[in-house]
């Protein structure tokens, strides 16, 4: 299962990509594969403040619903509206077009405490 170098990861299977003073967040290819066909993604409002590990949304596959956890504290600056009409983007391109939220982290260094690619690969047994 694809684990991209340069991203940070959580044990809940979210990824975080640093982008200047912002961070883009989604779920990993491993998580998307485990969920199966994604049919619904519920995302928070732009401007909302989130604590680290706070639930920021819900992802539903055909079979089940799962919470989405924010890897680091911050304020939401954008959400991926394309997922409303095309939730299957999460399966097709989990690290790219299937991104979920763009966050301005309170602490730009907070992401350093997350798993790196090697640690995440070890977590999922890959």
């Amino acid at each position: 299962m694809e684990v991209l170098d340069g991203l940070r990861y959580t044990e809940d299977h979210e990824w975080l990509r640093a982008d200047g003073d912002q961070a883009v967040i989604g779920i990993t290819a491993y998580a998307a594969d485990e969920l199966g066909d994604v049919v619904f993604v519920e995302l928070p409002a732009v401007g909302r403040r989130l604590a680290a590990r706070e639930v920021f949304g819900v992802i539903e596959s055909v079979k089940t619903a799962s919470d989405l956890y924010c890897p680091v504290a911050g304020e939401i600056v954008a959400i991926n509206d394309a997922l409303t009409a095309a939730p299957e983007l999460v399966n097709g391109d989990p690290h790219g077009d299937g991104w979920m939220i763009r966050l301005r982290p309170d602490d730009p260094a907070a992401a350093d405490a997350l798993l790196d690619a090697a640690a995440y690969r070890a977590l999922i047994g890959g």
Partner: protein
Amino acid sequence: MSDAASLRRTALVENHRGLGARLIEFGGWEMPVQYAGIIEEHRAVRATVGLFDLSHMGELWVTGPGAGAALAGAVVTDPTRLTVGRAQYSMICAPDGGILDDLIVYRTGEERFLVVPNASNAQLVAAELGARIVGADATLEDATLTTSLVAIQGPRAREILAPLTDVDLGSLRYYAIAAGTAVGVAAHVARTGYTGEDGFELFVAWHDGPAVWEALLDAGAPAGLVPCGLGARDTLRLEAGMPLYGNELGRDGTPFEAGLGRVVKLDRGEFVGRAALETNAAAPRKQLVGLVMRDRGIARHGYPVYLPGAEIACGEVTSGTRSPTLDVAIAMAYVPPGHAQVGTMLEVGVRASRVPAEVVALPFYRRQP
């Protein structure tokens, strides 16, 4: 039963692994939940054809001169009214009318009946049937672990199966069964299923399962046949408005409450649960309905159902998903009998939100004749 070592495996488990299936625990068995993906498998069954391993289902043979009469006292239908070669949907109830399981009863001979319970209830049903036929001139044989069951379902199922069996599929009616051969092995071929499509279920010897499975996979490939897991089976049956034990059916409900009162035959003699069911028929405590969500959100098993604006839940969702065929979120739920009319607007509690839902007629999906 989460201990993998204690799970039962069908004769087809290596075939599933070879096809890249994701295996899960279901009813005490390790079963494929999906291969390529639930939506793709679902659509294949609606458009062309899909293949299912259902070997986890129970197979209980009740045979002997008194078999039909004994069964008639044990289940809510009257199997003595079946002509040989036909089947009926049935249920086995507790004395209080609660549903112990739903069943298909096939009559394969004057004195031979095949009862098919759900995997998770097979042992309970075997024990109950055994106890209920004591004293009758009939015997019960549990063939669950010596029978493989493969289902081919979808509009092209007949054309794929026909060249591989000596059973005349054209004259085999819906809810009929015939003994013959399929792929060169002895088989009971039934025109039954759990998908809302035309299709067939093949009961064969345990060790013949893999050969039947592989032959149907090969024969169906040009038509687009795909192997299908329990995930697609669940979305297909839900669209078709068919109940699932543990969701719509359980000890805490009756056939009448599940909207299946027509299954219960009261114009006959005594059977277990009869008195309670007669009372319940006139005064059901709840009613199973179909719901279509009218805003964003998917109702799931266990979610509360409310009258609009009410604080206290009046009912509960039993099954729900996004319908791959209809492209809307559908659900089944129990609600008070007074709020079960088609067109009634209700609300489903989806996490912190209330999502409006409309009571609709079941099934959600009906195939074109």
